[in-house]
């Protein structure tokens, strides 16, 4: 089976509305007259930034590119331009901001790669309620512990005691999270090293990444649940917070 990894990369030309010259679809400015071009297509943030499709992204380099492109596209500099260029500047800036937000965040970056490589998004088909099999044991134990803690709180158990138990319940979930982060890093590195490998091999890696991402989302939700529970125990502690930040 030959997957179709690059559906958006079809070589097509863009017409400059100012001078009528043709420009490659990923150009930002007309090579002929230097005017800003209308956004040719949506979908591939890596190319937009002039980056290869890799998961390893240097945040400093990405930020520099973002600033540099902002200085080229921003509507501030097109205030006196014709309407078509003003619109192009607005579109390109909006798209740039979206692209930067996505590529800056490692998880969002993987999701974007899945999308441009034609894989389904990292969402479970049933809407996210199903427990990933790899987490069944931890989730079961955690739910039991949380139920007990809630009951104890209702019956007026000492808060300090409950806090200790919550911290304890959180520890194995945190370990899972760290484990997943390491795993995702490994898979990302593998993907980046597979540039010369077959499409099928790359796809296998991507599918593994997708699986890990799904589980990671589930873990984040579990941690949020624990944090809510921890928050419920310290309603009266709010005023202490302002003193926390002394050096």
């Amino acid at each position: 089976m030959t997957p179709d990894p690059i559906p958006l990369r079809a070589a097509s030309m863009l017409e400059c509305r100012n001078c009528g010259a043709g420009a490659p679809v990923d150009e930002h400015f007309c090579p002929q007259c230097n005017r800003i071009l209308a956004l040719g297509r949506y979908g591939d943030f890596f190319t937009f930034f002039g980056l290869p499709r890799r998961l390893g992204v240097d945040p400093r380099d990405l930020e520099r590119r973002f600033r540099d492109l902002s200085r080229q596209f921003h509507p501030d500099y097109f205030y006196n331009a014709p309407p078509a260029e003003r619109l192009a500047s607005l579109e390109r800036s909006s798209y740039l901001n979206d692209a930067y937000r996505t590529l800056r965040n490692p998880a969002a970056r993987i999701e974007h790669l899945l999308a441009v490589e034609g894989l389904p998004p990292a969402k479970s088909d049933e809407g996210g309620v199903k427990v990933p099999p790899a987490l069944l044991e931890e989730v079961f134990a955690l739910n039991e512990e949380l139920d007990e803690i809630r009951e104890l709180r209702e019956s007026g158990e000492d808060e300090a005691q409950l806090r200790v138990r919550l911290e304890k319940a959180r520890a194995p979930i945190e370990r899972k999270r760290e484990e997943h982060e390491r795993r995702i890093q490994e898979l990302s590195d593998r993907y980046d090293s597979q540039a010369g490998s077959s499409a099928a091999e790359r796809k296998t890696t991507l599918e593994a990444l997708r699986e890990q991402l799904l589980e990671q989302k589930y873990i984040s939700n579990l941690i949020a649940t624990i944090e809510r529970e921890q928050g419920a125990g310290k309603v009266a502690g709010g005023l202490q917070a302002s003193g926390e930040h002394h050096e």
Partner: protein
Amino acid sequence: MSKVVGIDLGTTNSLVAYVKDGVPVVIRDESGDGLVPSVVSVGTDGTIFVGREAQRRLLTAPESTVYSVKRFMGRGIEDVHEDASLLPFAVGGEKGGVVRIGIAGRQFTPPEISAFVLRELKRRAEDHFREQGEFDFEVDRAVITVPAYFNDAQRTATRDAGRLAGLEVLRIINEPTAASLAYGLDKRNRGTIAVYDLGGGTFDISILKVEDGVFQVLATNGDTHLGGDDIDRLLVEDVIAEMPKGLAPQTVQAIRRAVIQSKLDLSETDETAIRVESTIGLPTGYSRRITRADFERMIMPLVERTLGPCRQALADAGLEPKDIDEAVLVGGSTRIPLVRRLVHELFARKPHSDLNPDEVVALGAAVQADILISGRREMLLLDVTPLSLGIETMGGVMSKIILRNSTIPASGREMFTSFADNQTAVDVHVLQGERELASDCRSLARFRLRGIPPMPAGMPRIEVRFQIDANGILSVSARELRTSIEQTIEVKPSYGLTDQEVERMLIESFEHAEADFEARLLIEARNEAETVILATEKALRRSDFDRIAAESLEAGERERIEDALADAKRAIGSDDREKIQRKTETLNEATRHLAEVVMNRSVREALAGKNVKDV
């Protein structure tokens, strides 16, 4: 070329600034005052007073004077009950619609009131450019600032106010970001900055990263209902609690003025008095000691309300307080020592206040105006949208399309389809806010997607595109993807004015502008007449007048002067400007000879006096 300015349209005070030879400067009046109080008053004859004059009228005509109107911009009547209780002017409007302010028998929307303040600033700037000998002194374009936490309706209301004042609003920018631009000018540094802006009516916190001249906002948060006004109200309520019920509006305003003065004092001294002069319903006046400690105890809960938004902004930026390189204070309320102390504690560093916290926002607005006009690229502001934008979905749930703290411009897309066969329209409800339920979010607009081609249910694929521009203002467009048919969208703003309403107000304001202009000419004519009348009366009252008349005046001259004086005094009581001017001129003519005689005598006497001394 016509001029471009930056305007800080504040809750309490407004300012106008521009860039002169690359440096932003505030435009001041003859006495060096840059602040125009954001107060508007309507006289019994329809004359509009703005600024200091209107502020004075708060004590004499409180029912026809409006202040702090910024708090009502883009809001509905159900939002403002708490504020309305102590206000001297009537606040009304339909439920679910724009607030209306009733003064002097006329109804105004908040953008109309703000437009009076903007017109005053425009006039001040034009006077300044005229005095500078500029050939084209007209000011027709401006950058206007708003609190960072203003929602779409509040921003749109501000832009409408600009239009009503005859200004093309080049850009709406956020106050803390504007301040950072003004600060960035002389520093050229890089780092992470927290701008804490506590003004008259609103609080903002913005976290920015500055590098290579790009001012990128990482996160912003705030409270559009927290500021010096709330502190004043606490103090006023505290004083009123000691007084009989049912105080006259004049008395409440006198108390308000007194507590504001003591608030200002307490930023300088440890103890002062709240002193109210005797007024209606308060014949003996009122006085009471207040220490800074008392004051701080009272306002602590209010000031602490700023800490939550600060922590949220830091969390959204993914930062800890220790990551902040500099904290900058903006807004008059940051002069309060307690505020400075809390900011210092929160960020564990002494906050900056090198630039005048009242002026720094207007200076930044001027810089941004200059960037837009000149195309200079050394500096670039990248701001964010303060609140998430979304639509109401099945079950009254808010579905987010553009998340808060997204860099603007930002766009988002959402797909819609039909629920019934051959359905040709879909209703869309646009919301802004962070809450889960649509009913807890701000309703921005409702619109109907029309012209969907008749198809079986679920077949149409309508793409609705939400675009937030660099002003933080939303526009919506839609397209049916199967047919590529552009959809018509009629947006009905929930708390704003429709374009038609703005147009109508513009026309009305031109009519009124003529009336206002005429009213001002009338006042000027009266002032002129009064000057001449006073001078004449003074001459007639001279102890040596009889001798002067006998020695120097012609027969009947004295009678002619007295007749002209009586005519002028009668004319001044009328509203007929031309008559006043005619009678003033006649009186001027009648007294010309007398004035010469009197002046010659004075000179002779003066010389004589000198001679005596010299000899």
